[in-house]
């Protein structure tokens, strides 16, 4: 039943039921709420107001009583009395007002309230009497009066008030109990209803979901198989809802696909006779299949023509991405190009074969020329051989000469070494000479010492001569001869001094000469050293000369041996030329064979030209 409804109707029905439930629960809750409100109003109206008013009454009665006590106690003070009386009046007014209020709202017996009022009325004259007594100054009587009448009355009033208060408190208690009961029941009912509504909503949701998801799953399975290319799947439904319609449409699509698949299979097997009719103008598959068949047929026709040798076929590709068409086009083009190239090659081949034939005849004539040249070469080789022998002899002589030169160089080196030894001897002698000269110089120093002594002696002699002259002068005339002698002695002393000065001069000359001699010896020694060095260099040069002469002698030896080898080589060349002569004869024979081959090549070329002409290119 549910399956035949549309999904929209199903959803509306389910949601409607749930909304109804919610409205119902809301109404019940509202009703309970209003009941609770009324109860609260009653509670305020009756027990609360009464209790408040009675409490107020009680308080003011007590205040009046206390004020009366003040009147009795301090009545003689006029001001206090007036204040107390004012308080009493105010309180009395409040008491009467509140009593009236309590009476209106009181739910119990109203007589109790009336009785309190009566008692209040009775108390009034008693108070008046007491005040009067006070005013008269009879304080003791007033106190007695107050004690006898007022206290009793006030106690009665208080008892009555207490009773009323108790009653109203009890009433308030009963109100609270009633309110709590009502609230509890409302809560229970609402909870049950909400639970029921939730259950119902869940059930409805499950039912609707199941009715939609079941058929959809079937459709998804079918679509999955279709996506994998399985067109054998069977899809159908008796349901009248949207999913049923969807499934039926899918069934139709599958049938159409199956038909297309069959057609494609046949095309794949090469059957181009298949007729494909598109289901509608928008049937992309059908139209494509149709154009594919047409294009394949066109290609097949072109291929037939190419097979028949008509290379002029021009294949137009269906689009830029038509690989088969493009391949066909390029194949036809390539075949055309190939054919043209083959034609050209065949032409070239024909001319080449002709050239080969002429070349071969030239070859034959040149072979004859080669033979004559070879014999001339042979004669030349013989001449070269004789020259080689002569060279060999000469190089032998050079070798001997250089051997001798080496011996001479060795002798020269020995001489140089001896010269060096001699030079060294000279150097030693030079040293010896220098030593001796220095010794002589030292000896002449001793001579200088002797001269100094002689000089000193001359000096003293001179002095002595002076003294002698003095003595002679003292002797007067008798000492004249002595004075002459003294003068002579003085002269001798002077001469001695001069002689020593001369010797000193000569010694100076000797010293200078000695120094010059030593310097000359040193120069000689240096010259000898340089000589030694130069001799060494000369010896080295001679050694090098000897070595290089030895090298060249070795080289001449090598030249001699290699000329020997050259002679042998010449002999071998003569033999080789002989074989070249034979080979040129063979060449002649070979050229003849080549001529025959060229001819057959020409014939082959004729055949090829015939074959190529069968293809039409333009």
């Amino acid at each position, binding site marked *: 039943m549910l399956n035949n409804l549309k999904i929209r109707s199903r959803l509306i029905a389910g949601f409607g039921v749930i909304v109804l439930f919610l409205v119902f629960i809301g109404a019940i809750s509202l009703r309970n709420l209003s009941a609770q409100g009324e109860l609260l109003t009653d509670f305020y109206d009756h027990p609360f107001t009464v209790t408040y008013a009675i409490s107020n009454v009680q308080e003011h009665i007590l205040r009046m009583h206390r004020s009366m006590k003040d009147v009795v106690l301090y009545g003689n003070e006029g001001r206090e009395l007036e204040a107390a009386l004012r308080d009493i009046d105010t309180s009395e007014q409040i008491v009467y007002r509140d009593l009236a209020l309590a009476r209106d709202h009181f739910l119990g017996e109203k007589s109790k309230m009336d009785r309190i009022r009566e008692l209040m009325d009775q108390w009034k004259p008693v108070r008046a009497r007491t005040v009067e007594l006070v005013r008269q100054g009879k304080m003791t009587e007033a106190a007695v009066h107050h004690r006898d009448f007022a206290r009793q009355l006030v106690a009665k009033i208080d008892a009555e008030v207490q009773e009323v208060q108790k009653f109203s408190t009890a009433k308030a208690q009963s109100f609270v109990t009633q309110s709590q009961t009502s609230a509890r029941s409302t809560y229970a009912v609402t909870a049950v209803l909400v639970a029921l509504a939730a259950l119902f909503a869940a059930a409805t949701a499950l039912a609707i979901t199941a009715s939609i998801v079941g058929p959809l799953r079937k459709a998804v399975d079918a679509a999955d198989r279709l996506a994998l290319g399985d067109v054998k799947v069977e899809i159908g439904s008796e349901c009248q809802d949207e999913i049923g319609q969807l499934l039926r449409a899918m069934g139709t699509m599958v049938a159409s696909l199956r038909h297309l698949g069959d057609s494609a299979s046949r095309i794949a097997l090469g059957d181009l006779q298949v007729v494909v009719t598109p289901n509608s103008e928008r049937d992309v598959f059908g139209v494509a299949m149709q154009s594919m068949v047409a294009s394949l047929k066109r290609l097949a026709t072109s291929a037939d023509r190419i097979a028949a040798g008509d290379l002029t076929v021009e294949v137009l590709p269906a689009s830029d991405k038509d690989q088969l068409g493009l391949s066909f086009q390029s194949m036809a083009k390539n075949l055309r190009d190939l054919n043209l190239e083959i034609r050209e090659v065949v032409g070239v081949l024909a001319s080449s074969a002709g050239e080969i034939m002429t070349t071969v005849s030239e070859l034959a004539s040149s072979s004859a020329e080669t033979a004559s040249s070879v014999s001339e070469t042979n004669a030349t080789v013989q001449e070269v051989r004789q020259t080689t022998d002569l060279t060999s002899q000469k190089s032998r002589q050079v070798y001997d000469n250089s051997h001798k030169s080496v011996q001479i160089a060795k002798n020269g080196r020995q001489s140089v070494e001896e010269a060096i030894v001699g030079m060294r001897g000279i150097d030693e002698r030079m040293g010896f000479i220098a030593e001796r*000269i220095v010794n*002589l110089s030292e000896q002449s120093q001793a001579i200088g010492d002797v001269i100094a002594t002689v000089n000193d002696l001359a000096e*003293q002699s001179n*002095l002595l001569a*002076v*003294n002698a*002259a*003095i*003595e002679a*002068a*003292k002797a007067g005339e008798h000492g004249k001869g002595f*004075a002459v002698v003294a*003068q002579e002695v*003085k*002269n001798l002393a002077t*001469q001695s001094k001069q002689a020593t000065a001369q010797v000193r001069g000569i010694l100076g000359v*000797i010293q200078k*000469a*000695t120094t*010059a*001699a030593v310097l*000359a010896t040193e120069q000689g020694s240096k010259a000898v050293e340089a000589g030694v060095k130069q001799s060494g260099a000369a010896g080295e040069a001679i050694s090098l000369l000897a070595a290089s002469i030895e090298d060249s002698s070795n080289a001449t030896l090598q030249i001699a041996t290699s000329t020997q080898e050259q002679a042998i080589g010449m002999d071998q060349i003569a033999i080789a030329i002989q074989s070249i002569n034979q080979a040129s004869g063979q060449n002649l024979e070979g050229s003849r064979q080549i001529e025959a081959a060229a001819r057959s090549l020409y014939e082959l070329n004729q055949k090829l030209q015939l074959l190529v002409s069968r293809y039409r290119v333009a």
Partner: protein
Amino acid sequence: MKRDKREGSREPGGIDWPQRLRRQQEASAACSEGRALNPEETRAILKERARLLAAPVEVAADAGTRLDCLEFLLSGESYAVEMSYITQTLPLADFTPLFCTPGFVLGITNLRGRIISIVDLRRFFELPEVGLSDLNRVIVVSNGTMEFGILADSVTGMVSLHLGELLPPPGALAGLREEFLAGVTAGRLALLDIGKILSDPRIVVHEEVM
């Protein structure tokens, strides 16, 4: 020998070694024996010397006007002292300086047991000092009572002066020197009046230091 070598180096050809050796032997022989001079040579040498030494003998025209003096050098100037006052000359070998004496007293010296004082006339005359040298001589003068030695740079020798040729001391010389100068010759030889010096009280040193 050195000379030989030097000559040898100048010779263009080879060195004549035998000639060199011979010359050397001759030289060494001469050295060892001493050159034996023949009598003519010796005589010639002596004659030559005599000729050089010979002084023209002045005829003593008037002996009374001549004075024998000893000439000596002092600070580059020549002085003469009358021979009669001179006892002797001696080399200044050793002397002892004396304290508490005037500057002109150089010191005292021992002359064969006699102690004589040495006077430096350069200081006495206030002349520039040359300083002592090895050649310094002392000329001992005496007049019988006073005796001292005069310090001299060197003793030249004996001279005989004509008293008539003596000139008075030039005006440039002043003070002590002029006082003790007897006269000056044309050859700038100053004759000291040694008798005056010897008797001068200034030369007597009498000081007590206690």
